Structure formats: structure tokens, C-alpha cells
């Protein structure tokens, strides 16, 4: 395994609670026949379970599932950031089947999961990456996970980067920053990255400043959400970026600058914000927040 110098290193076995919740959602969305097929596959030999994982769309509908708000809240309480909202039934079924693979023999378990990755087509990859926070031996999948960030398959990238709690927990700072930068670079909604605030860091803030300078030099704009990652790290360089934003014709840029400055302890940033009364008041009253700049 590649060592990312990750601070988190716990041996983690998924709670039965989540398996059970997923099954409850499946029952709510399947016919009796579909559910029986899944149940049968889940209790069969590893190879039959794995072919079942592949064969899911042959036996289970691809419709988008509906999920009671309370069940989603329970999932989230058990595993923060984990969500199955807007998943297809096929994706949910595949993820559930993965949670049913016997993990008692680590070597066999890892070999089986690796084989599924190796032979997967795109929808299978999406299910596999969605399931990473639920798999046993989570550190084992770090290389795969960072590889998904390198993927140029949009759906695969989304499966690891957005609404997935795995990267926040296990990615090194370097891998994390790469994930965030690529999300920004690909113009995807950064606020859907789990742990965005928690894993904000000075290096990322500095890189984002460089990124903005490049874009501005090329006459291009920078999404206002980018600046939610720099507030705590505002220094002289970032301060001049804030000044630049306050002078932008785009109101979203000015709002982003105000929000970032408000998060900073850097005195000059406070002064800068104070010179923009209206925005300062909007931030203080809470009428302006980052959610407004999400898209």
C-alpha cells in the first residue's frame, strides 16, 4: 500500500446498522421479486455474489430511489456525510451487495474487491467508489480512491469527490488538495465535497490564490465558491486577491470577498471588510452566507 502519511489509521469494520438501513431503503423501493433476488445473491458464494453485483441491472430496476427524510438523517447520524440521495436502485443494490461480502478473511476479501475494480465498467465503478466508506479495511482502498480522482470519467470522479465521506477521513493533505483543485478546475460544485471546511489548509489556500492569478491573467473568471477555502489563511498575498475581488463588477465576487474576510483574523482583512459597510452588515446579520454562492 502506498503511504500517504495519513493521520487517520483505524481498523474499521462497518456497522450492521448501515447495512440494515440500506436494506430497509431497498425494501421500500423494490418489488418482492427484486428483493428476493438480492437477498439470495447476498447469501451465496463469493463468486456468485460478485457476479450478482455485475448482473444487478438484469434483475433490478434502474429507477431513482425515494428515501424518507428520517432514514437519510439516521444514515447521516451513523456515518456523517454518507448519502444515498438521488441514487438509482441499481446503484444502491450494488453498494448493499458489497457490504454483504464476507470480510472475515482479509486476503480473500481484498482480492475479491480488487477483482471487481479491475473488471468494472463505468456504472460498476460508480457503485464501488460510492461504497468505499462502507468497505472493511478502508486504508486498503486509498490508492484506488486517489486513482478515481485522476479519472477522466465524470461519473466516477463524482462518486469519489462529491457527497462521499471517504476522502475527508483517509486522504493525505496532498491527495485532498488534488481532489479539491480538480473539482474546482472541472467546474463542479465544491460545496458537495464532504469535509470541505474541516480539511481546509494553508497550502490549498496558497494554491488557490495562484490558480486565481492564472485565471485572471488569462482574462477568465474564478468561481466565487473558491474563496470559501481561504478565509482562515488570509495573508498579504490573499489580501490583495480580496482587494481585487471587492473591485469586481460581479456582485458574487464582492460577496465572496466579504465572507472570506469575515472568517479571517488578519487585521488588514478586517479593515478591508469594514470599508465595505453594506456587505459587512450582511455578513454579520447572517443574511449573506456561502450557501448563496452555491450552484
Amino acid at each position, binding site marked *: 500500500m502506498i503511504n500517504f502519511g495519513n493521520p487517520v489509521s483505524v481498523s474499521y469494520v462497518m456497522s450492521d446498522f448501515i447495512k440494515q438501513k440500506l436494506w430497509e431503503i431497498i425494501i421500500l423501493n423494490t418489488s418482492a421479486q427484486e428483493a428476493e433476488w438480492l437477498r439470495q445473491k447476498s447469501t451465496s458464494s463469493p463468486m456468485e455474489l460478485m457476479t450478482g453485483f455485475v*448482473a444487478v441491472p*438484469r434483475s433490478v430496476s434502474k429507477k431513482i430511489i425515494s428515501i424518507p427524510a428520517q432514514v437519510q438523517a439516521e444514515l447521516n447520524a451513523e456515518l456523517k456525510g454518507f448519502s444515498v440521495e438521488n441514487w438509482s436502485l441499481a446503484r444502491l443494490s450494488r453498494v448493499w451487495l458489497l457490504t454483504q461480502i464476507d470480510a472475515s478473511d482479509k486476503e480473500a476479501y481484498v482480492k475479491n474487491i480488487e477483482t*471487481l475494480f*479491475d*473488471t468494472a465498467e463505468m*456504472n460498476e465503478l460508480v457503485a464501488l467508489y460510492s461504497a468505499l466508506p462502507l468497505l472493511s479495511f478502508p486504508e486498503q482502498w486509498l490508492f484506488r480512491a486517489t486513482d478515481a480522482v485522476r479519472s*477522466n*470519467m465524470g461519473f466516477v470522479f463524482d462518486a469519489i469527490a462529491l457527497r462521499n465521506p471517504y476522502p475527508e477521513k483517509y486522504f493525505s493533505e496532498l491527495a485532498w488538495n488534488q481532489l479539491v483543485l480538480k473539482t474546482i478546475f472541472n467546474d463542479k460544485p465544491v460545496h458537495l465535497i464532504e469535509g470541505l471546511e474541516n480539511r481546509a489548509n494553508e497550502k490549498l489556500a496558497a494554491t488557490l490564490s495562484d490558480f486565481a492569478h492564472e485565471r485572471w491573467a488569462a482574462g477568465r473568471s474564478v468561481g466565487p465558491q473558491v474563496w470559501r477555502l481561504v478565509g482562515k489563511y488570509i495573508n498579504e498575498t490573499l489580501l490583495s486577491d480580496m482587494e481585487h475581488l471587492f473591485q469586481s463588477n460581479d456582485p458574487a465576487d464582492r460577496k465572496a470577498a466579504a465572507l472570506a474576510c469575515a472568517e479571517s483574523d488578519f487585521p488588514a482583512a478586517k479593515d478591508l471588510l469594514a470599508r465595505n459597510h453594506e456587505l459587512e452588515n450582511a455578513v454579520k446579520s447572517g443574511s449573506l452566507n456561502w450557501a448563496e454562492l452555491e450552484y
Partner: protein
Amino acid sequence: MCLNHNENTQNPSHFEESEEANVSPAHREIAWNEYKDLIKGMQFFDPHIHMVSRTTDDYEAMRQAGIIALIEPAFWVGQPRTGLSSFKDYYSSLVGWERFRSSQFGIKHYCTMGLNSREANNEPLAEQVMEILPLYIYKEGVVGVGEIGFDDQTPAEEKYYRLQLELAKEAKLPVQIHTPHRDKKKGTIRSMEIALEHGIDPSWVIIDHNNEETVKSVLDNGFWAAFTIYPFTKMGNERMVKVVEQYGPERIMVNSAADWGISDPLAIPKTAALMKMRGIPDETIRLVTYQNAIDAFGKSGQIDVTDFEAGHAVDQSAKFHGNSILRGGQQPASAKDSLVIR
């Protein structure tokens, strides 16, 4: 592949041996302008063609000639594979990149998955392939187990043929059977006997590469009979017309089996034109060049005709894994009649 024009030999196809390749062409050449009006409005389904070995020109010509869907059987790619990874990547390409490439020309792409008979003879590798094959045959758009069967008719070939018949039975998938070129008649009969021995319903089995010598027993036993129109082999399209005249359209289908040898991806539209010229009814032509293939492979439950019958919009700037079939600055469609290639 190198073609030496000083030697009067042709390249063998994957189902043909070289000694028999040097025969006079039975395939009648017809220019597009001569036959395009005859098949105007017809739609074709090629149930056997190896697109990984073909060019974008072929895809364009096929679509123009009315081919709207095809099946790409897993086969021997010419260069023997030396490891499991080559098989994995090849199988993945059949449901991945090649399927995407086909979609870029408005042609719906299906495939059959299997361990071909030639490479079944490499037993240590064949064992490994059999271990992962189940993970491929259940993928979406896989309409059968194929092409499997006999080449040299060795014990190893028989062993993996039988194992794959069981796999097909378990997965409820049709079977696409390659028949050998040498000792064809015996090989064909043996293939059918073994399939029946495994309790497989013959209406789920497509016996491929038939000729006049094999067709009767194939049809009499309730199997589908596929004919490969391939230049320089014994099955040319003029004789195909005669077969259809004699046996009618029931359980008969035509394919090109175009691959890396000298072959013709337009074999089906050309044969349809020839049938039309010879006065074969339109409905018969439709059955043998389109509908029968859909009925046979549709038993997989993986063919939805609404995916291709109404014609689907082509966006050549679409991407697969972030890659397009276009290279920097290329325009999506090229002007084929232009002398200047831009």
C-alpha cells in the same frame, strides 16, 4: 498485417486456415452507387462483426448503408494473448471504448463474451480466463456467450466449450458458436450434439459460419443458422441468395464477421441488394438481415429495439473517459467524396 502482392495469397480470417484461402473470390463486388437505391430505407443488424479491427471509415460506411446495430463477439485478435490482463482489457473494451466508438456513428453496439477456441488451447491461461468470465457475461448489453466452439477440435477446446455452455445456461444467455473451417461438417455436428447433451434449447443457439453442406442439419435440429459472407471464402453472397431461395428465411441470418483479415463490413447491405435484384421478397430480406438476429439474441433480454430503431442522434463531440473519437481540431464528419483530406 502485411500483404505481399507478389504472392498470390490472401490473408486468412480468424475462422479460416491459410491453405484454403487461395481460392477464386465467390464474393461479388458491387459499387455503392449500383446498389444504394435497391436497399434504400432498409435497416440492417450485423450479428457478427469485430469492430476493434475496423476503422472509422467502416463505421461511417456501415451507417450510411443502413446498419443500425451490431454484435461484436469476443474473438482471437490475431496476436496471441500472453496474460489475463490482456483478456480483461479486451473484454472491457467490448463493453467500454468500442461500444462508445460505435455510438459515435449512430450504431448500437452489443457484444457476446467468451473464450475463443484457439486460445482455449493455452490451458493455464484459459483457466484464469474462466475465473473472471462470469464477471463479464452478466454486464449490460452482453447478448450471449460467444464466439465459442471448435477450431482444431482438441480436447482442450472441448473442455472449455462445455464449461462455457454451462455458463450460458446458468446466465440464461444465447450461445454463438463458431464452427471450424477444417473438417467443418463433422465439427458442426459435434458442436450441436454437445450443446444438446448439456440440455441447451437449440432455439438459444446460433451456429455460425454455415455453408450449403451444414445448413440442413443445423435447421433440422432446431438451431439458428448464421452465414458469414466473407470474400475469398467458400460462402459468397451469390450463393447466399440461393440458400435463402431454397430454405426460406426461417432461423437464417447473415453476418459479415469482418475482422482484421480482408473482409467486408458491408457484406449484409450488399447481400440484401443482391437478394432484391434476384426478386427475393422484402420481408424475407428483412428477416435474414435484421429481425432474426434480434429474435435470436434478444432472448438475452438485453436488446431493446427502441434504442436503435428510431435512429439515435449522434454527438461525435461526446466523450468517453474524457476521450473523444476526434483528435485536436477535427470536424465531426469528414467529406468522403473529397479528394482533399483535411
